[in-house]
């Protein structure tokens, strides 16, 4: 118990250091407030810590979200237009409101037939990620190494996978790459856990009670409408604010909108508050909180078991290989909570202060990914296998003691994960 507390304390210290300043982060880059619409931030990746003396990477476990995409659902592009049109019909739009309506109409037209599709920027993100993966770990992607890649059955994920494996194959044509995207793999690629829906529903009130404090829809309303009484009477202003925030936030997913800036609609402090509201929702939907019996993130138990299974197999095989999986942020987020990466297993009922301890934007921008890299000692076959975790290609922490951070002893990590999974006995181990 003492070692665990120490480990947690160490993790919390690092975590606080990392997470001090959501406001500062958004001030530096307002696009980060778009949370899961934030375009993969890979312009300033830090150098990776070299392997310990005598150790070579030989296996990678990976789960990555698809890249930047169009918004999902007919309301995403339609609701901003129809609500602004109410203002237009009644002559109640400001000059800015009219400009925004014109842009929203353009985006809606552009989005026809493209519901949730991978964007040009999304494809490029995955090409860059693959190139760095190869450059960072050439020992893994060498010779005829088998690379087993699979995707969920959603097209943007399959195309993300295609963009990555294409680049890996280009860099080493001898790689033995197999791909798949099948319902048969979905039990771990994106498990539809029946427990989760009811738990989320039961916790709805916890964040809805903070809605009025964080969402001030009048502020957006004043920028777009000339008549606030009309606005409050005719527009569902909370919905409108959230949909507009996503519409603006997702423009960074497309080259076509590179030159268009709508962030004046959401000045920094308002963006922070809207983000806080979204962050709370994601915490309820994915996090390890007593508000949902600390159970929801366990929906990724099968995925963690898949990681362990593939690692065991790779360690036994002895030759380099990689296991790549392409899916969704709604998997990556609970996965990081379940594994306790960077302190994301933080447990609290205090949603109002959540943002100081748990920040989803750091975990799940578009193309977010988890890479677990395994190392062996080439001169000492009996030495421990080591593992390092990269979250969005930055070295991350696990709540496991280590004498060589950011490297961990795989046996310790494996024990920790299996022990944690065993604490929820009613999750069936569905292994094929």
């Amino acid at each position: 118990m003492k070692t665990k507390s120490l480990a947690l304390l160490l993790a919390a210290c690092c975590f606080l250091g990392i997470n001090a300043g959501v406001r500062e982060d958004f001030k530096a880059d307002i696009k980060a407030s778009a949370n899961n619409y934030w375009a993969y931030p890979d312009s300033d990746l830090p150098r990776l810590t070299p392997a310990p003396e005598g150790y070579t990477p030989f296996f990678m476990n990976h789960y990555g979200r698809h890249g930047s995409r169009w918004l999902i659902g007919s309301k995403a592009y339609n609701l901003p237009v129809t609500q602004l049109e109410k203002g237009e019909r009644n002559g109640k739009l400001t000059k800015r409101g009219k400009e925004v309506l014109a842009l929203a109409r353009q985006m809606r037209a552009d989005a026809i037939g493209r519901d949730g599709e991978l964007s040009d920027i999304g494809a490029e993100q995955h090409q860059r990620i693959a190139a760095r993966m190869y450059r960072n770990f050439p020992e893994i992607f060498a010779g005829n190494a088998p690379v087993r890649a699979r995707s969920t059955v959603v097209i943007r994920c399959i195309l993300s996978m295609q963009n990555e494996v294409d680049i890996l194959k280009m860099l080493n044509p001898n790689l033995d790459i197999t791909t798949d995207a099948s319902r048969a793999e979905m039990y771990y690629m994106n498990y539809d856990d029946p427990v989760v829906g009811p738990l989320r529903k039961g916790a709805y009130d916890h964040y809805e009670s903070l809605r009025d404090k964080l969402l001030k829809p009048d502020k957006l309303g004043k920028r777009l409408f000339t008549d606030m009484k009309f606005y409050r009477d005719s527009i569902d202003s909370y919905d409108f604010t959230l949909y507009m925030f996503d519409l603006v936030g997702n423009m960074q997913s497309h080259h076509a909108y590179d030159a268009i800036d709508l962030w004046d609609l959401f000045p920094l402090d308002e963006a922070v508050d809207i983000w806080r509201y979204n962050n709370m929702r994601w915490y309820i939907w994915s996090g390890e909180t007593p508000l949902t019996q600390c159970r929801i993130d366990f929906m990724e138990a099968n995925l963690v078991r898949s990681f362990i299974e593939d690692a065991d197999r790779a360690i036994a095989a002895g030759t380099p290989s990689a296991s790549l999986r392409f899916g969704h942020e709604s998997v990556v987020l609970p996965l990081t909570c379940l594994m306790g990466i960077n302190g994301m297993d933080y447990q609290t009922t205090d949603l109002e202060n959540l943002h100081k301890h748990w920040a989803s934007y750091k975990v799940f921008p578009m193309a977010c990914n988890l890479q677990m890299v395994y190392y062996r000692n080439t001169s000492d076959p009996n030495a421990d296998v080591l593992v390092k975790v990269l979250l969005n290609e930055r070295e991350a922490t696990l709540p496991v003691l280590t004498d060589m951070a950011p490297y961990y002893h795989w046996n310790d990590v494996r024990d920790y994960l299996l022990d944690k999974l065993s604490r929820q006995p009613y999750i069936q181990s569905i292994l094929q």
Partner: protein
Amino acid sequence: MKHTLLIIAASMAGILSANAQTARQDVAAQFARSASNHYAYPAPTRALTPAPEGYEAFYISHYGRHGSRWLSSEGAYTRPVAQLEHANREGMLTEQGKHLLYILRDVAAAAHDRAGDLSDIGAQQHRDIATRMFNNFPSVFGGKAVVTARSSMKIRCILSMQNETMTLRALNPDIRITTDASASDMGRLAYGYGEDTLANKLRARMNLITDSMYRHNIKPQRFVDQLIDNAPSLEWLDGLQLMRDVFDIAGNMQSHHRFSDIDLFHLFTVNEIFELWRIKNACWYTQFGNAPHNGNRMPFTKRNLLREMIDSTDVAIANGQRGANLRFGHESILLPLASLMELDTLNYSCDDLNQLHLHWQDYNIIPKACNIQMVFYRPVGQSKAKADDIFVKVLFNEHEAMLPVGTDMFPYYSWAQLRQYYLEKINTDINWDD
């Protein structure tokens, strides 16, 4: 011109008379052919004709079906298992029947949640096709070639595309590829849109015709008796469906490495195999081919696709950029497209479905991974060559195909003439209403 027509007539006569003898022989020689659209892509054997003197290939417009796959519905696997399990529970299975049941249980278990998925063999087919395409036409895919690849939204098509783009990248690190699989493309690449949906009523009528062929020509008794005792007395047993289901599974084993040693054709007589194939052949023909039964209209469901292929070729010729437009979809699209394009003798119009197999064989047309490659040639060094100066040849399943305009340099044709012919044909008035 007369000379050319004589050559064409002679070739067609040669092909037709050759086929009159060989359809039955073809199927008897290789039962895998009887699987119709499940026939695993036969790698090409004929060498290609060199480019015309002074010309080089610069652009390819392509439509290709996904590779080998699992059968498209789980019911295809579970239905025969359910029938045999029922017989088993009543103690009515013969030894043959039990043996078949054990095999089908394993296959159904493997197929669980995999209906329609691309198979390992399917992925390999596409890697091989891309490799040959690249090696056949280095002037198309070399250097900073631009490849635009699009797919139907069905996963097996997207993975087929992925196996090809991955292969092209391995062969040329400088190649520029963009991919897409979008609802906005489905109207052209796939089905369920526009004119294609107008044809659905017709297809339903065609189904009735071929259903009656099954009922009249297929006698399931012998087949069923080897599996189930006292079969005629069993009210729940649908012998014809059981026979057709086992035949489909038998035919699709060739799609998987893991099942390639399992032969279920031995449960059928050669004649049964031939008859089952013959009727399926008629299904494909009437549903998607140039059949008088559908008023010779089906090929026209793909006129938008052909128009798009012509449009994008016009753009490629105008901007002179080397590269390709690759489109990944389905045999149910490729077949009417190939008919519309009048490749070889595909567009054959045959009144008598009992004679059809003498002139038209689906295994020659729509195996897994079937594909059309339109290869365009221009004078060497002339990136801004005009349409008049462009030659085209069409590879159909990677053999050089005959096209519906004249030429004195087969397999090369004048693109301007072919383009004109297709555009006029595309404008044909079609009434879908009767």
